[in-house]
């Protein structure tokens, strides 16, 4: 059978249209880029395959790509995040959407393969989130000489793309849209910083003022979580492994401690490192009874769940996202969202206006790959500083903020891309 969405229910389509309109009203950057691209149609003649969680915000990105002249095939690349009403609304606009909410992992792969093969002449452009499609392309480059470019949005996918690029010569540009100030500053730091606190509040309803809040990791996400936790009145302790990161955290006014010291008095431990086994047996043994454990890093392995399970004599679900583990020594620990992403599970992930900026980056690269292919060389690369500045200017304009470079032409002011080390 095919995972192609066809003849969707009219009621579903209507709800999808309403959801897309709501998201669009909070996404001024994509809306503006779409209006420009609908004139110049830089993707005319292109066949684009995308694999990004099919939320209402992603739906606005898809509409932009269609308005830019592309034929579009799409899949969510995930078991549960596809919003069927959004899929329905896009399907009637001519987008070939594959998949639905509630698929098995194997079915997610089937739907992605179908999307990749949706065009008889093959895709010319790839827009990716997690490098699923780029991996498919890398495995069949000889059969896809028509490919002109690809973009990848996540840290994890960008790492994978660089690995691939080390052994394969991509004959077209593969652009990582992750390592850009306007992506990580808005999305990772402020978006995830807020949604992590939001997730902890929704899951527990706990009072944060005065709490000992331990943040493991002080990268873009960890810094955002630490800032917001402090903003809610928590007493924040930062745990990290890099000396440069530790000095940055200390000079930002945070207490820096080894986890084995911080764990002894922690009320909340939140991992945001991107590494496995941050909180392990030795730390679990030190935590005071009643401590809350949660994770906002990419993988569920940051808190070693096997170590936690080994000490657990019984568990109970005390609130929807709170599982209380009673330990063999009489203490209990509250694990949020099963150690998965607390910001996505207990809260709602990034707000529309955050996805607006993230997708604006990915959309502009994609439009550039279509309209100005000479701008990018073949092979794996990052977004250039000029586009980063363009997105920053668009965001400022949308917020109604003027700065000293507002009246100067783009590219002549100090580029935000220079601040990568910040």
């Amino acid at each position, binding site marked *: 059978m095919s995972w192609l969405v066809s003849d969707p229910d009219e009621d579903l389509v209507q709800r999808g249209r309403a959801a897309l309109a709501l998201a669009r009203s909070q996404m001024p950057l994509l809306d503006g880029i779409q209006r420009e691209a609908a004139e110049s149609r830089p993707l005319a003649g292109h066949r684009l395959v995308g694999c990004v969680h099919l939320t209402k915000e992603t739906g606005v990105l898809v509409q932009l790509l269609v308005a830019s002249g592309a034929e579009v095939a799409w899949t969510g690349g995930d078991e549960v995040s596809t919003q069927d009403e959004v899929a329905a609304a896009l399907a009637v606009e001519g987008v070939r959407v594959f998949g639905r909410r509630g698929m098995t992992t194997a079915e997610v792969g089937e739907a992605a393969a179908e999307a990749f093969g949706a065009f008889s002449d093959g895709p010319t452009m790839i827009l990716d989130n997690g490098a699923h499609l780029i991996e498919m392309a890398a495995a069949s480059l000889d059969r896809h000489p028509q490919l002109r470019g690809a973009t990848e949005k996540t840290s994890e996918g960008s790492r994978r793309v660089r690995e691939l690029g080390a052994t394969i010569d991509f004959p077209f540009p593969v652009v990582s849209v992750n390592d850009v100030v306007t992506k990580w500053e808005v999305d990772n730091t402020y978006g995830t*910083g807020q949604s992590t606190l939001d997730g902890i509040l929704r899951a527990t*309803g706990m*009072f944060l003022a005065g709490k000992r809040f331990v943040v493991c990791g002080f990268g873009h996400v960890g810094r955002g979580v630490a*800032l917001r936790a402090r903003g*809610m*009145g928590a007493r924040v302790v930062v745990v990290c492994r890099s000396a440069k990161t530790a000095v940055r955290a200390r000079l930002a006014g945070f207490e820096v401690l080894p986890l084995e010291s911080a764990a002894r008095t922690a009320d909340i431990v939140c991992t945001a490192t991107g590494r496995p086994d941050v909180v392990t047996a030795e730390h679990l043994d030190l935590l005071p009874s009643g401590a809350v454990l949660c994770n906002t890093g990419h993988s569920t392995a940051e808190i070693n769940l096997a170590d936690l399970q080994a000490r657990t004599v019984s568990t109970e679900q005390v609130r929807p996202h709170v599982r209380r583990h009673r330990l063999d020594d009489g203490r209990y620990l509250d694990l949020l969202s099963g150690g998965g992403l607390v910001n996505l599970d207990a809260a709602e992930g990034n*707000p529309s206006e955050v996805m607006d900026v993230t997708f604006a980056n990915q959309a502009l690269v994609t439009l550039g790959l279509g309209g100005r292919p000479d701008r990018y060389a073949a092979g794996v690369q990052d977004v250039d500083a000029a586009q980063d500045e363009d997105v920053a200017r668009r965001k400022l304009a949308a917020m109604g903020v003027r700065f000293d470079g507002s009246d100067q032409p783009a590219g002549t002011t100090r580029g935000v891309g220079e601040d990568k080390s910040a």
Partner: protein
Amino acid sequence: MSMVRDLSLADVGQLKVDFAARRMPVLSALVERFSESKPFIGQRIAACLHVTTETANMCRALVAGGAELALCASNPLSTKDDVAATIQRDIGAEVFAIYGCDRETFYQQVQGVLAIRPTIVVDDGADLTTTIHNDYPQLLDEIIGGTEVTSTGVLRIRNMATDGALRYPVLPTNDAATKHLFDNRYGTGQNTIDGILRATNVLLAGSVFVVVGYGWCGRGVAMRARGMGAKVVVTEVDPIRALEAKLDGLDVMTMDQAAAVGDIFVTVTGNRDAITYAHLQQMKDGAVVCNSGHFDVEIAVSELQANATARRELRPNCVEYKLSNGRGVILLAEGRLVGQSAAEAHPAEVMDMTFATQALGVQYLIENAARLEPGIVPIPRSIENDVASAKLRAYGIQIDELSAGQQQYLTDWRVGT
């Protein structure tokens, strides 16, 4: 004769109440103390409060102390039906509270509570106090005294006292430092932000966040909004508070000026008409407007509803009204308390202090009934110190004591330059 949605919800409610109890060490200690000393034997308490997990724990303390207790909701939208069920079934109070009930049922619930013929009135917003004085004066003879927990309610009862209408002594729990410094500032501060996030999921970082009123609640909301990365603007009518906001590093302007620049507005004035229909018309398209003051009179909601050209529910507790100027205003929780409606009322740790203060206040009223006159009774300092010390003990924090020399210095007028 109780009124709850469904008693079978009590199992779920009980789990939540126990979860909250873990974070209420001061009140939990009082439950133990009262179970032994039984200070409330023979007392009939009528309470009108938000029916939440934290209220349930205060009910536990009062019942443990021997009181006969009846409880109704102070706001139909803040009632948690599962909690109401467990208070009725497991804690043993008569409960009259159903989420989202209409106005008529709401007043039936107040009547239900008064059927207990109270000796003590525990109030939140002074609705019970004013209803008794206006409609049930026959109950007044048996009432020893009452407590009132909110700023708004205390103001109403002060006005009653000034008019000579107040017929029993009332302890204004809100005046206790252990209440307003913590509950109003940190409690309302956190749960207003929590309510806005749950209702809208908007990004606060970089937004222009207008706090209307800089009392204890306003100070807390402004502090937390800034902590979430917002650019905070304060509007005030009181010159001292406006100056305080300015020196706290916030922008101060008139409501007319703020209306045009704000992305998010929160009213915390305790007064009516803080945001008028004229202000709503000046706002940017998509501006979010909500209230964290006690009553739903701070925003011109009915005028907005009457004049809107279209109404669209975007999310739960989040409705967009289209104005004739083509712009949309997004109103949260119908202009009622956004934290209580869209989030979960105050966190247990804060209500721990508020309700411990309240419960000790009830004990004080009973012990001093013979000498207390009708009117507002000052909160004894001993209650505040008792609660604050217990909270510090729970945190494991020790503090210094004045030395003999320091004590003498403070009382000696002869030492100077």
